[in-house]
């Protein structure tokens, strides 16, 4: 049962325009650099009103001159054409499944049980009050991609070219600005309106780029301002922030603090780190790993049950990937890799997902294992997983222990709370196997529980169909666990940083 909210945003259209604009200036002296750059940006802003500015709609034959109110194909598309009609012209659509995590305050449901919770755990109550209900909202958006171009042809005749030479000692700066603007429209708006909004967005992005360029100039070095799109909780939606290129997240903290304040966001989770940038459907992950395979599953519905799932994006790591033949011994390593991938993609860690060797080396470096451990096929458990998370990523974890597998059925509340407050994947090891728990479906009243398991023992290719059909990522009941074996669970804690 998916908990839905009555205020799911209507299906809309996202317009994204990308293009390059040349930034070329000739400051006379090093003192005049900033002024010269500002003047050039002013010129670029005025070019946004030029009649030779063109939007071409990607994967279609539609071309728009927004400042001339000219549309091609003439007679078939005009400024009054509705956005939804424009979709007819586009060869393939990009549907966007937006998983937005919205935090709302549940008043009614909790109040009844408030006194019970107070007895159990005061801090849990506080947490629950703050993030009372997490739900996943699936919104479908169509993305229309546009390319920003300039028409060089003109109605002639015009004067023939002149070659002008200016010999003058000075300076020159030449770079291109990677424009990338996003606006939202409804299906029933005419495209003329959307185009005007896009022009406004481009103009204001130029201003933000100017600010970013000037603030981050070091002497004669200009850091190219780059736009990033971030998905904020509704009703904000997608916002675009300009960051200077090449500056790591660790140095952008004050900028992010200002952003959290501006958008009224809590400072205990990142929204504006570069890895948090929104991925459009046409941006394929080049690394070949599957992302969030659990999203294609049909989730179970229990009486009075709720879903508590991992928040954000992780990659599926399993046996035999990366040409590492760890069949039979590497399951905990793979689960650890899945956990690391979550921290990396939510922006908490900059280092890439560690290899088996790096994991082993980390344990040796900590003094936990002998040097001969590196390159061996020895298993690791939850304790080692927690230790490596700390050593390599600076993440602390809670360890949960059950002496018998059958006790796991009673851990519903803890696991539910974990997914509510931390939202990180859980590594579980016991008996001879390790798995990753991505969520639980749990009913407080009946105590029924199901576990969403990501199985690292899969040895096949990255085939989402097979993985979901055969249950390599799937919902399991309490009988999934070895009822007599003991289990350790590693529950990684989300750092309260932004």
């Amino acid at each position, binding site marked *: 049962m998916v908990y839905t909210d009555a205020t799911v945003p209507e299906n809309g259209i996202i317009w994204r325009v990308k*293009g*390059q*604009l*040349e930034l*070329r200036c*000739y*400051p006379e002296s*090093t003192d005049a*650099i900033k002024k010269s750059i500002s003047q050039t940006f002013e010129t670029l802003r005025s070019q946004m009103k030029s009649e030779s500015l*063109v939007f*071409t709609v990607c994967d279609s*034959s*539609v*071309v728009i001159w927004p400042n001339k109110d000219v549309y*091609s*194909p*003439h007679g078939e598309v005009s400024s009054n054409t509705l956005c939804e009609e424009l979709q007819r012209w586009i060869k393939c659509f990009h549907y966007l499944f937006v998983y937005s995590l919205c935090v709302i305050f549940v008043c009614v449901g909790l109040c009844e049980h408030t006194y019970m919770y107070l007895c159990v755990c005061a801090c849990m109550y506080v947490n629950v009050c703050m993030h009372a209900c997490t739900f996943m909202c699936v919104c479908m958006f169509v993305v229309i991609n546009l*390319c*920003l*171009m*300039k*028409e*060089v*042809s*003109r*109605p*002639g*005749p*015009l*004067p*023939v*070219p*002149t*070659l*002008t*030479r*200016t*010999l*003058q*000692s*000075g*300076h*020159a*700066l*030449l*770079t*291109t600005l*990677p424009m990338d603007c996003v606006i939202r429209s409804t299906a029933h708006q005419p495209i003329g309106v959307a185009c005007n909004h896009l022009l406004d967005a481009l103009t204001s992005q130029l201003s933000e780029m100017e600010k970013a360029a000037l603030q981050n100039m070091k002497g*004669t*070095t*200009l*850091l*190219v301002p*780059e736009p990033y799109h971030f998905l904020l909780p509704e009703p904000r939606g997608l916002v675009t922030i300009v960051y200077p*290129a*090449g500056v790591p997240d660790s140095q952008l903290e004050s900028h992010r603090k200002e952003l959290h304040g501006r958008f009224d966001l809590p400072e205990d989770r990142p929204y504006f780190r570069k890895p948090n940038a929104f991925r459009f459907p046409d941006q394929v992950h080049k690394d070949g790993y599957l992302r969030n395979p659990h999203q294609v599953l049909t989730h179970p519905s229990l009486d009075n049950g709720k879903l508590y799932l991992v928040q954000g994006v992780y990659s599926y790591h399993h046996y035999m990937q990366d040409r590492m033949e760890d069949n039979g011994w590497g399951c905990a390593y793979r689960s650890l890799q899945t956990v690391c991938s979550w921290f990396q993609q939510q922006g908490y860690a900059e280092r890439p997902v560690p290899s088996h060797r790096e994991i082993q080396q980390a344990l040796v470096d900590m003094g936990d294992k002998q040097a001969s451990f590196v390159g061996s096929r020895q298993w690791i458990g939850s304790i080692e997983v927690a230790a490596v998370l700390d050593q390599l990523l600076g993440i602390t974890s809670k360890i949960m222990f059950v002496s018998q597998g059958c006790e796991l059925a009673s851990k519903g509340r803890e696991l539910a709370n974990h997914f509510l407050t931390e939202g990180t994947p859980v590594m579980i090891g016991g008996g001879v196997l390790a798995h990753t728990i991505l969520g639980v479906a749990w009913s407080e009243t009946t105590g029924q529980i199901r576990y969403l398991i990501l199985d690292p023992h899969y040895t096949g290719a990255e085939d989402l169909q097979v993985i979901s059909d055969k249950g390599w990522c799937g919902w399991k009941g309490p009988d999934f666990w070895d009822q007599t074996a003991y289990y350790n669970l590693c529950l990684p804690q989300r750092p309260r940083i932004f």
Partner: protein
Amino acid sequence: MGRGYMVEEAVERYLSSLCSSSPLTGLLLGQSSAQRDFVVMATRTPQREACPLTPSPRDTLDMEWINEHARQVSRMLPGGLSVLGVFYISDAEAKDTLITLRQLVFAVQKSISRDLLWLSGDDDISERVTLHVNSTTRKTFCRTFDVRDPKSTAKPADWRYQSGVCGSWPMVWSCVEVEIPVSLPPRGARPGDLETSLQEGLKLWAQQIERGTFLLDGRKISEDTELTGPTKRNVKQSLQAQILTTPVCPGEQVSQVGASGGRVVLRGAVHTRAYLHGNKPTARLAEKALKRDLLSTVALRLNMVLEELMETQERDRLSLPTRVMCPLRGLGVGVCDYRFSDEGPLEVLDRLKEILDLEVRQEDLDHTQEEEAVTVETQPAPNEGVQRSELQAAVVPPLKPQGRSYIGAAMATVMALLAAAASLLYLDD
């Protein structure tokens, strides 16, 4: 199975008329397509003024002169038209002249290729025709050679005369604004820097054009679309093209403000035109032909003023010559020439006669496609040194070519400049 050449009837009359002046070489002009080739015009190699007439057939032909003529002819051809081969009129037996013709066609091709700003693509036809006309019997002997294969042998080809070969050829044209800013390295650097900088700027601009989006009659159509012919026969079809570009992105994250010794900017507009064969031409052909013409017309005009710019330090402003179009009556295609502002239409007519052997009337010349540069010199402000000028009324006398015509103007260094640029650019499907 050899190639088939459809040849304009007027070419037969022209070749016939030349038989009395045999031996004579010349060029065959037209367009090649995958299925067949079209020859629309022929032009004899003019006499070199210093040399006596009629060398005996045994004498080696004046290759250098023939090559130079071929280059001059090539520059007067709008897009879509090119030198398809050579002809040789003599009273010798056809089989005896094959070696000469082979030599000739390879040399001409090589000479013309040096000027091209692109490498030919895989789908460019590399067969060139050689035609021998026996001056006594008027019999023609036609063979082709693959000029990309140094070992190629003669292949038979079909040579057929027809009227109205290019009567209904569509014409594609556009007026394109060119802006090529080039930053010069600091003073005191190597002397070749102006050339190198311009070469870089031209290369980047050519890449932008090559990658640019092409619209025909206001629409973006797919490359394989066949352009429908005119509804009535022999009605000239004229398609206006538009080009959309985006800057070529260096993809760098960090940019440095560097020292510069100044800049050179080429700014203005050119008329670009291409003729497409009438045998189901595609949008791809139109785009290729027009873009190549655009690159050529800018590069060769730049070439014409470049030497002057490099030699003098006083001249800071030079305007390029204007393009004069010359539609050929009764043919359906046209040629063009370049006129400096101190030249009149008579000089153009003279060149058309000398290089292309065309008798053209003054009223047939079309000067309206481009305007002369309205240029300016203003007084530099006292404290600012050299500065950019504003547009006002004075016309600056531009560069004159040496001598009356272009033939004989050896611009070897400039050719090297563009030839080096040629290896870096290519237009390809």
